């Protein structure tokens, strides 16, 4: 088996390996889908057969790349948590949390269980309204914006417990993501206006490229629920990428992965960053976070206790105390059961 | 003075608040008798919903079977649908009413459990989504209605069921007993309200004080954990349907005392919708909510029909439901028996 089992190609190194099926999944996938292995015969499709251009990794990167107008310059704060508190009844889940996410970086948000990671995440994505303070995203305060509007503003997320649209195919799932950026609605679709048709075509082209990008292109026409666990996690990332986010939030994307899969996932996350996206990573697994992030924010009891480079943070006594006596391996709460 | 006497026929939607003022207490008392019936039927909806997250659409047919059950019991006791009131003294009347009520309870309770066995259990075994349950319930509702419509008369030699409504057997003729704030209270009113009160209290005690009731609440809150803790989910579900059926059977007798001409295969439908509305009004899944919602709906409906005209009675009920849901999406008392769903 190759050293990137079932995973991505060789990152963003253009010209080395391309992201077509033959490179990233040819052998492992063929082994994986033996006929008769399950009740549902898996259907594989060679995307390059119908979209030959997608065999070119550089072009795939280019299609997937972040191309939205972002006010913030690279390296400047894209999202600012300004003194955000979230209180449920008497419980303060977030206590005056201030940090920012800079454009173009991979920020890790970590902390022990119950530290407020998910609350912070939900405050950013509009699930909760902050009790105090505000979230400022690319120059705009996310005050009363609805959840779907926040997505269209440019914050996309994945779910800790996968929530794909199971009856839709993988491709359709991703196209739903691209729909967030559509401008035509019911009248356009009803009358099939030129603009609508163009949007639909572009959506499918882009979605196929994204599927190739995350490495599940071969399963494009399969219903989401028939995908393997790892493929479903990748598909979630693809769907979020399809909304053309300025900020991509990944909620424990490696949960349930074995070390080899985690390695491949790290490659994918780096590749996404290199393609121009800003990534927020919430993760338990210290090794993964340390290996992939540019900066880490540590939460404990709803407060920020550290904020800095992975090296600084992991040697910070306060952080060590928070994780005291708990080696990395036990923090990783995945089972190594998932397919290799 | 009965409510219907004060209602003047009005061609378009009328609006007569003065009539409401004049008859406020009479309307309230009469509304409570309707409300008591709604409340008892609503408990069946609410318990099943609390435990299974299922709108038991066929519950109205259980109620209808209850009406036939008490009617058949009275026939078996030797009464005829002659229209003459029974006049052998209050004790015997109450005794026979009690027996008739038990007859209704047995039929309705048995039918409810049977329905659960035949229609819902196979679906549960297959883990069907909730829409499938609802459609099955609608199918079951058809089947029960048509059974009474066509099959029952064939089975009973035309004694029961069929196209036409049965002539009522009147054990009690309404007779004014006393007045509250100028409102007449009849013996029928008293029987309905007291019976309903006793049944409601008993059910509330059963749910909140006994081991079985604890089981029901546990399953409603978290079926998985409840099962792990040794509660037999299947048995609890059966019990829930049984309680709902029994109360519907009791309500059937009370309803025929108040509205004695509804013993027909299609007689449960509108009442079922209203009882469900009552359950939703109070907060579905919530036992006390169902009771409160039933009484409220009965009373409000009575006020509404005086203000707007008799023909708008049902409209008032549905508009009330929509308005309450608009402002309190989980009903008046909220959904306490079960967890609230997103």
């Amino acid at each position: 088996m190759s050293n990137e089992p079932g995973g991505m190609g060789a990152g963003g190194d253009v010209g080395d390996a391309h992201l077509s099926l033959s490179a990233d999944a040819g052998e492992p996938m063929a082994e994986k889908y033996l006929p008769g292995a399950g009740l549902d015969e898996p259907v594989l499709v060679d995307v390059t057969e119908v979209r030959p251009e997608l065999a070119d990794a550089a072009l795939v990167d280019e299609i997937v790349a972040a191309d939205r107008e972002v006010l913030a310059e690279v390296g400047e704060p894209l999202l600012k948590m300004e003194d955000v508190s979230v209180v449920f009844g008497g419980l303060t889940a977030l206590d005056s949390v201030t940090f920012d996410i800079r454009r173009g970086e991979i920020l890790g948000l970590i902390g022990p269980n119950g530290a407020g990671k998910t609350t912070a995440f939900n405050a950013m994505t509009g699930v909760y309204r902050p009790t105090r303070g505000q979230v400022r995203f690319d120059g705009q305060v996310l005050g009363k914006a609805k959840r779907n509007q926040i997505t269209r503003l440019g914050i996309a997320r994945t779910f800790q417990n996968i929530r794909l649209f199971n009856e839709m195919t993988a491709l359709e799932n991703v196209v739903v993501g691209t729909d967030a950026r559509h401008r035509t609605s019911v009248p356009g679709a009803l009358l099939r206006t030129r603009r609508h048709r163009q949007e639909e075509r572009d959506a499918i082209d882009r979605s196929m490229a994204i599927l190739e990008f995350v490495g599940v292109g071969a399963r494009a026409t399969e219903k989401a629920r028939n995908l393997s666990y790892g493929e479903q996690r990748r598909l979630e990332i693809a769907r979020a990428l399809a909304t053309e986010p300025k900020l991509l939030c990944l909620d424990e994307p490696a949960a349930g992965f074995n070390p080899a899969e985690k390695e491949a996932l790290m490659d994918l996350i780096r590749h996404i960053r290199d393609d121009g996206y800003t990534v927020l990573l919430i993760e338990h697994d210290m090794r993964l976070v340390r290996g992939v992030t540019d900066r880490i924010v540590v939460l404990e009891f709803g407060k920020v206790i550290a904020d800095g480079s992975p090296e600084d943070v992991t040697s910070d006594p306060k952080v060590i105390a928070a994780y005291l006596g708990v080696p990395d391996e036990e923090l990783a709460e995945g089972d190594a059961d998932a397919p290799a | 003075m009965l409510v219907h006497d004060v209602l003047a026929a009005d061609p378009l939607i009328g609006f007569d608040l003065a009539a409401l003022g004049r008859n406020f207490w009479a309307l309230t008392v009469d509304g409570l008798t309707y409300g008591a019936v709604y409340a008892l039927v609503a408990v069946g909806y609410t318990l099943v919903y609390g435990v299974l997250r299922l709108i038991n659409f066929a519950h109205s047919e259980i109620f209808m079977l209850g009406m036939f059950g008490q009617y058949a019991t009275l026939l078996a006791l030797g009464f005829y649908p002659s229209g003459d009131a029974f006049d052998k003294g209050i004790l015997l009347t109450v005794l026979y009413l009690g027996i008739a009520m038990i007859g209704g309870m047995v039929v309705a309770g048995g039918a409810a459990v049977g329905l659960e066995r035949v229609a819902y259990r196979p679906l549960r075994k297959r883990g069907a989504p909730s829409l499938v349950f609802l459609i099955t319930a609608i199918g079951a509702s058809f089947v029960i209605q048509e059974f009474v419509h066509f099959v029952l008369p064939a089975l009973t030699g035309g004694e029961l069921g069929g196209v036409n409504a049965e002539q009522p057997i009147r054990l009690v003729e309404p007779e004014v007993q006393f007045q509250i704030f100028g409102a007449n209270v009849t013996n029928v009113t008293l029987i309905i309200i007291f019976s309903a009160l006793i049944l409601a209290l008993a059910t509330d005690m059963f749910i909140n004080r006994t081991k079985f009731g604890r089981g029901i609440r546990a399953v409603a809150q978290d079926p998985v954990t409840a099962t792990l803790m040794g509660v037999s989910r299947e048995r609890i579900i059966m019990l829930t349907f049984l309680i709902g059926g029994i109360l519907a059977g009791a309500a059937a007798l009370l309803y025929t005392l108040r509205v004695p001409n509804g013993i027909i295969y299609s007689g449960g439908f509108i009442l079922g919708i209203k009882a469900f509305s009552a359950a939703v009004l109070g907060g579905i899944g919530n036992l006390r909510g169902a009771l409160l919602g039933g009484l409220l709906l009965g009373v409000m409906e009575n006020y509404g029909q005086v203000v707007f005209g008799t023909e708008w009675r049902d409209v008032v009920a549905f508009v009330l439901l929509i308005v309450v849901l608009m402002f309190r999406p989980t009903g008046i008392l909220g959904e306490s028996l079960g967890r609230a769903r997103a």
Partner: protein
Amino acid sequence: MSTSTPAENDGAPVPGPAAPARPRPELPPAGQTPVGQRPHGGAGDRLRLWWDALARPAQWAFGAPFVLFIALLPILNIPVLTTVGTNFGAVMAQFGMYALIAIGLNVVVGQAGLLDLGYVGFYAIGAYTLAILTSPDSPWNVTQPEGWLSDDWAWLAVLPVAVAITAMSGLVLGSPTLRLRGDYLAIVTLGFGEIVRLLADNLDEITGGGQGLKSVAYPRLGVTEELPNGVFSAGNVGSTLNSGVWWFWLSLVFIIISLLLVGNLERSRVGRAWVAIREDEDAAEIMGVPTFKFKLWAFVIGASIGGVSGAIYAGQVQFVIPTNFNIINSVLFLCAVVLGGQGNKLGVILGAFIIVYLPNFFLGRTSLFGIPIDGNAIANYKYLFFGVALMVLMIFRPQGLIPVRQKLLTYGRELYVAARRTLAKMPDGGPQAAYATSAPASGTVGTVGTPGSSGPAPTGHGPDGPDENGATGNDTTDGGNR
């Protein structure tokens, strides 16, 4: 009713001898993965595969004669098929109306997953709008002699009004109630259907109350000596080309228009939004789908189609009374949708056909294939049979007779065709064999737009210049944080 969480499916197909013995815990409970829904198996799927692989002109070549056959069905007089107790043309006219209703209700229930038990309300509003505006019994009659509208055009002129008013009623009902949860929506819509009927029954001065409204307008076409009121008149009875047949043909026109429009929606972001809402409303919202807006659209579109059907009904029978809009009709409509297969447009039309045709098939029949039967009794028991059928169907085939296989994409069909080609090759050596044969492409931009790609040419990234994605994407990538 546990919802299956894919997060637990750690047992994907694994190679090696251990694989067959390994259970597949991620398979949803049996009820949710009916055999028919498993990808690519069974005769129906083969048919679908064949159909999907056809080019558009070929699909038309097969489709048009089929539609023509359906259209001619009422006048072909096929022995066993034709009804004996009632006129077959009238039955087909009723089927046409039910089919329209099924298409409309399918948008709401099948596609968006909103349980609407009051759909008959929209049907009634469509019928009553037409009746109120064209019946001489109504105070708001706009037709001659009281009004200004010629009888010849009254039906066609009022139809858009009826549709607009029904659509508006959908908006009025939907905007407060669609924020409610699914179960509450069911009961509120049930109440709505009942309110509409009660309004029709009680607003005597406008709707004629229980008496109803008579002499409703209908299209005056094909006026001859024998048929002074045209072929659509209820007076056109008896002959092969009776009014029922004409109304059926008219319905067919509306059915085809509705199918095309609803199909357009289904294969666009609208249809995808509906399915996303049906599958997981919260996730859809978070992925940027304005859920409330699209639910409302589903309601309005469903209502409009119901309104068309109601207007056709009013015109055909030329007479509306409240008892024809009982709640039981809502349930029958729902039956049609569920029976045929929720979400499947052709399936629900089949469902509508069964609901309308079966009772009429038995009506007046004394023998079937030589076996003596009491057809009238069987027809009488129709609700009993529908009830049993629903219950049995829900246990053994909850997805309906023709399960849904929605197409949610207008373009990209060639990808699915390619996938099925892969599948077709499978018996020879399994998917991996088919896989290996597809040689990896050379990986250069030069291969773009090769003539081999079928269907609409790949756009956006073709040789006609880089699109905006490509151009700006490059810049951002270069500026990326390295």
